[in-house]
């Protein structure tokens, strides 16, 4: 085990995969100077400018070129800088990368990773703060990954690079400096395996990405009030670990899904609906209001899902059950 930041864990994962497999290369704006968040710091020195490649500010070309390069037997890791900017390359991701294997009848694979730093990051406003993971989960062909810890960011990025599917890899910008223990060696996680962060028996809370940490604060508060919440970090949204979530919620009888993304049409709705179809439980979801993210801190915080709201929602589920 080594202590490492979320950012450095991903950097180590990419470096290890590039050493292991000469067909892996990374391309995106500013990578030659380490990338906008320094996620690629030092890599061009080791791997050279062909494998840690700069790119013009051409999101469609970055992603579209990755599709062509992936179909030709390389494994591109694409940096989109901010997940919001990846919207300039939706055709390349949704119509091309996600569908090439299927519509060409299995003649090809598109083994690429699209790294999209996501989420609220103080005063970044409406075009640099979004959490759009549910959009990608809706698209057949894509894998969607939302790591919340340094260990997972290393193990899941390695899995993403080794995957023959196109992977949308959503790292949360707020988590870059988060430190945590990362297993030594070649540790790779399978997709679709959730983590039980805290075991509990009174209710199940499901979350992912940075919101897991806000939920952990809420779980601690709930514990002080005698409520034992089980916190599940989904880790990957597609595939998602239905078995773990449904088993936990069936056992506790209460399911709360929490995400930073807008609640309406969020992935919480998919989990809630699946649970409603399969188990008997009281279900609630908690996401952001359907409003853009503002610049001024009070505006930003107004759409942020914070621990007190999670505690209140959890207590509502628990008390409602008692009343029922």
């Amino acid at each position, binding site marked *: 085990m080594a202590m490492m930041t979320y950012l450095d864990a991903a950097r180590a994962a990419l470096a290890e995969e590039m050493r292991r497999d000469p067909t892996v*290369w990374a391309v995106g704006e500013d990578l030659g100077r380490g990338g906008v968040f320094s996620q690629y710091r030092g890599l061009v020195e080791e791997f050279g400018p*062909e*494998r840690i490649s700069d*790119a*013009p500010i*051409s999101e*469609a*070309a970055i*992603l*579209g*070129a*990755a*599709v*062509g*390069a*992936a*179909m*030709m*037997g*390389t494994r*591109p890791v694409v940096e989109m800088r901010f997940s919001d900017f990846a919207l300039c390359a939706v*055709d*390349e991701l949704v*119509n*091309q990368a996600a569908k*090439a*294997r*299927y*519509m*060409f*009848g*299995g*003649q*090809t694979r598109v083994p690429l990773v699209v790294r999209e730093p996501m989420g609220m990051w103080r005063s970044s406003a409406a075009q640099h703060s979004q959490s759009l993971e549910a959009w990608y989960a809706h698209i*057949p*062909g*894509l*894998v969607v990954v939302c790591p919340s810890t340094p260990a997972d960011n290393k193990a899941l990025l390695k899995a993403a690079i080794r*995957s*023959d*599917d196109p992977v949308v890899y959503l790292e949360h910008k707020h988590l870059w400096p988060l430190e945590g223990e990362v297993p030594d060696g070649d540790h790779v996680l399978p*997709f*679709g395996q959730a983590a039980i962060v805290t075991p509990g028996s009174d209710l199940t809370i499901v979350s992912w990405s940075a919101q897991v940490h806000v939920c952990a604060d809420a779980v601690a508060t709930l514990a002080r009030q005698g409520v034992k919440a089980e916190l599940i970090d989904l880790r990957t949204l*597609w*595939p*998602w670990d239905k078995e773990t979530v449904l088993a936990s919620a069936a056992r506790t009888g209460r399911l709360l899904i929490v995400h930073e993304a807008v609640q309406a049409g969020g992935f919480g709705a998919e989990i809630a609906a699946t649970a409603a179809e399969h188990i008997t439980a009281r279900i609630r979801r908690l996401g952001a209001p359907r409003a853009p993210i503002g610049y001024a801190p009070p505006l930003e915080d107004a759409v942020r899902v914070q621990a007190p709201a999670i505690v209140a929602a959890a207590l509502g589920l628990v008390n409602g059950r008692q009343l029922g």
Partner: protein
Amino acid sequence: MPIPNLDLSRLRDQHRMMWRIRALEEAALRGLDEKIVLGAIHPSIGQEAVAVGVVGNLRRDDILLSTHRGHGHTLAKGANPDAMLCELFGRIGGNCGGKGGSMHIADFSVGMLGANGVVGANIVIAAGAAHAIKLKREDRVVCCIFGDGAINRGPFLEGLNWAQVFGLPVLFVCEDNGFAATTRTATMTAGGGPSVRARAMGLMAEEVDGNDILAVDSMARRLVAEIRAGGGPRFLHAHTYRLTGHTGADPATYRPAAEVAAARALEPIARTAAVLAEAGLSADDLAADRAAAEQEMLTAFLAARAAPFPDPAVAFTDVQDAGAPSLEHV
């Protein structure tokens, strides 16, 4: 007057290939009439010299990316017409197993990395395929064919810039048939057109009469050789004319009959036949090329029409490895 240094055997092969493309597309249109083709068909009738003249200069291991109007390019790259018609009819035996149809036809075994249903989308993918070739230090060439409508899409700028910046082995071919769907492209395009835009990004660009097989062939041969020698990307603007509507269902009444008649007089197969006749080929030989192509495609048509549809379970294969769908979700 006979053309000096004419490679008669090569031109005869090109004549045969153009007839094969024409006959394949007429078989596809018959499929549309018989309601065997259920989706859209975008014929390239009248544009065959671009497909044959350009693609004929590629090696089998070179890469081709095409458009929604890509039957001719695909056949010229070496795809099997039996499989192509099965694909158009959505049958077992199709290149894509019935999952793609006309607009997603592909044959990776001959380096044909796909038609594309999105105008201009293939340009950035082609740049990436060439990027991989450069990374792997191979001497293959990528050929990316798109229409005149594509030059107004963002990926045209992004993809050409990318190829030039990275010095990639791509031949961009703008197959200019004058129409972006049903709109005259010139009425919606500013500036000097495809070649001017390409040159503005530093690419060497050439223009050619796309209905003159000899001109297309010699120009493409030179450009492909320059690219393969490491010269970076090249751009070819080929002028042609779409003798049909945008789709098989489009009567194209927005074009004056006189314009179409004038274009028909310049269509490439008859022009090629005239050159061959001038060089001494008999009318019987010329007719035999057409008859052989039509017989080949009739046989392919009948076989494809008789082929079975895929099993519905195939709808759930080749989606993805992780989180793949299954019939339980229906």
